[in-house]
């Protein structure tokens, strides 16, 4: 943790997700400035009050549907003006969607893909441009929340998984662009397993594989400063997914996942 040199200036896209809230709290405790973006403005104000009480230097709320990708560059500029700079971009929004519905109804499929990938491409690329131009004096970081669902297509959620696979490759490429340059920003992609948030309330929970939002927040906070570009969260998913990828197709066919 010695690499932390001062409070960050953070924009959180999808600031009301359980993991985003928990992560924003970690940054606030370090005195960060925060710019929160989500659809529900009233709910954002509640989180803003909490983050100020926890020690955030400033909190600005912006109500926006992030699938609207007009003027992403101007929007980042606005966030940067509000905070006096911008060095951290957290992309947390997304929907789990309904796989069965998506297979029947193109509207649901498009919603999952647009929320999980298409619009994210705009925000990630505009964010990358912004971080390359920012001169805040500390190394920028662009962090996205992808999923282990993108590591191998499975019958239970492959539309969602394909969007997350796209996001993971996007971030892999961005890391490849930046990795050799010590002054370039860092691209960090979290591959999340099961997290106990309101988004997953419909699923049966419990057991050792389910992480708490606060566990993920600790990983986010650390990954913002140092570490690899692809971060399985929690770490054991790296090995679970390695095993799942290595299972031959004829065996995988018999597994109901």
């Amino acid at each position, binding site marked *: 943790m010695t690499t932390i040199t001062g409070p960050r200036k953070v924009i959180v896209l999808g600031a009301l997700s359980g993991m985003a809230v928990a992560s924003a709290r970690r940054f606030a405790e370090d005195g960060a400035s925060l710019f929160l973006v989500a659809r529900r403005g009233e*709910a954002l104000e*509640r*989180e803003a*009050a*909490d983050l100020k*009480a926890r020690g955030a230097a400033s909190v600005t709320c912006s109500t926006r549907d992030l699938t609207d990708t007009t003027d992403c560059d101007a929007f980042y500029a606005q966030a940067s003006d509000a905070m006096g700079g911008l060095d951290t971009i957290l992309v947390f929004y997304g929907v789990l969607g309904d796989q069965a519905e998506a297979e029947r109804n193109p509207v649901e499929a498009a919603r999952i893909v647009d929320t999980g990938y298409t619009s994210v491409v705009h925000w990630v690329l505009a964010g990358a441009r912004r971080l390359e131009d920012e001169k805040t004096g500390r190394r920028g970081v662009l962090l996205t929340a992808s999923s282990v669902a993108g590591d191998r297509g499975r019958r239970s959620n492959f539309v969602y998984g394909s969007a997350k696979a796209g996001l993971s490759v996007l971030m892999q490429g961005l890391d490849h662009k930046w990795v050799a340059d010590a002054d370039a920003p860092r691209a960090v992609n979290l591959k999340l397993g099961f997290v106990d948030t*309101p988004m997953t*309330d419909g699923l049966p929970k419990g057991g050792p594989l389910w992480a708490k939002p*606060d566990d993920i927040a600790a990983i986010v906070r650390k990954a913002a400063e140092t570490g690899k570009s692809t971060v399985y969260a929690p770490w054991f998913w790296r090995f679970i997914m390695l095993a799942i990828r290595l299972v031959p197709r004829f065996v995988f066919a018999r597994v109901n996942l």
Partner: protein
Amino acid sequence: MSAAFQSETSRRSWGRVVRAEHHVARPATAADVADCLSHISGEGGTALPYGLGRSYGDSNLNAGGALIEGRRLDRFIAFDREAGVLRAEAGVSLDEIIRLVVPHGYFLPTTPGTRYVTLGGAIANDVHGKNHHRAGPFGRHVRALRLARSDGSIREITPDADPDLFSATIGGLGLTGMIVDAEISLVPIASAMIDQRTEALRNLDHFFEIAEARADQHEHTVAWIDCTASGDRLGQGIFSSGDWAMSGGLDAHRAGAGPVLPVDLPGFALNSVTLRSFNWAYRQRQLMKPGRERVHYAGFFHPLDTIRSWNRLYGARGFYQYQSVITFDAARDATRSMLERISASGQGSFLAVLKTFGEVASPGVMSFPMPGVTLALDFANRGEPTLRLMGELDAIVREAGGRLYPAKDGRMPADLYRSSYPGWEVVERHRDPAIMSDFWRRVIE
């Protein structure tokens, strides 16, 4: 049930004796809490506010009905660093509050023996700490709270504007509505360290000799009693006192508890030999400490919080906790009688705690603490013999005009509760008609 409620078959309280089915909702806002309550009310069912589940018996269960978990109401609302006043949602834990305020030179006005309770739960049970003789119970420091009720309302309640509902809600076991947020006063501290004084207690008389003097001298006092000792050594133990140190830094404890006890200890692991050995070893360890030393508040106030799920020590059948308070004039004889009964039964507990409560009154009409001496014990659940022993202790408490702590209780006789808590009728009058607990059903019917 609506989609917001999920069925759960085996919710248990901290003592793990009872397992019950509930419909559980996890609302994230005050408005959602009010919606949950009115939904339940509309269906003619009952619901109970639920925090971190640290109540031991059945006061946090509502078998067959609904539980409304408060843990997602976990936001701070305002922290006035000049005035030392904090407003927070009711699902925030004392652990989180302490971590927030300590670096700014504040602490909770009083803290129970665990940090893992919610703000709402601390108010609903009007919890107490080692400084009860100075600070009174937790409810004393509540300046205002908001209550969601099944009529869909969310009301700000203050001691001045709504004295009746306020006093029914402090220590009201969550029955008057669900507390959704509260404003509390903090106390300034110069450091996060406690100057601790440790003394050996020869026996019970020795406790009564020094307890009053130590309460005058020190802000925090508590005694640990070896309840396997008998005869001249009955009541032998350790007396611990402490005061906030004037220096030593303002480092809060670290987030997250220590190791988890991953499995239930088998029932046979807890017997009179292991109990004796544990109590002997604990006493030796405490006595090896210097008489006075400077320790961090976390070790001083919350020693058991370092082991998560310590309740599994008592095995799969769970355990009962028994906490009584008896007025000063009757306390010496009654405490002696209780310790004699326990020692003779061979069903001692790992830790028995003895402490004096002071005169600082609670605003709550049904609060547990009163001036006198409180004794807290754990008993592994061995079925009939355990219930019989506690029945014998009941007789001593009843005779001495004392009472038992509902947050710890899963079995006290209804008439003992009602006669020792005359305020229960006030709470019943203010009870939200859609709120009920197993405990309340048991003691009022």
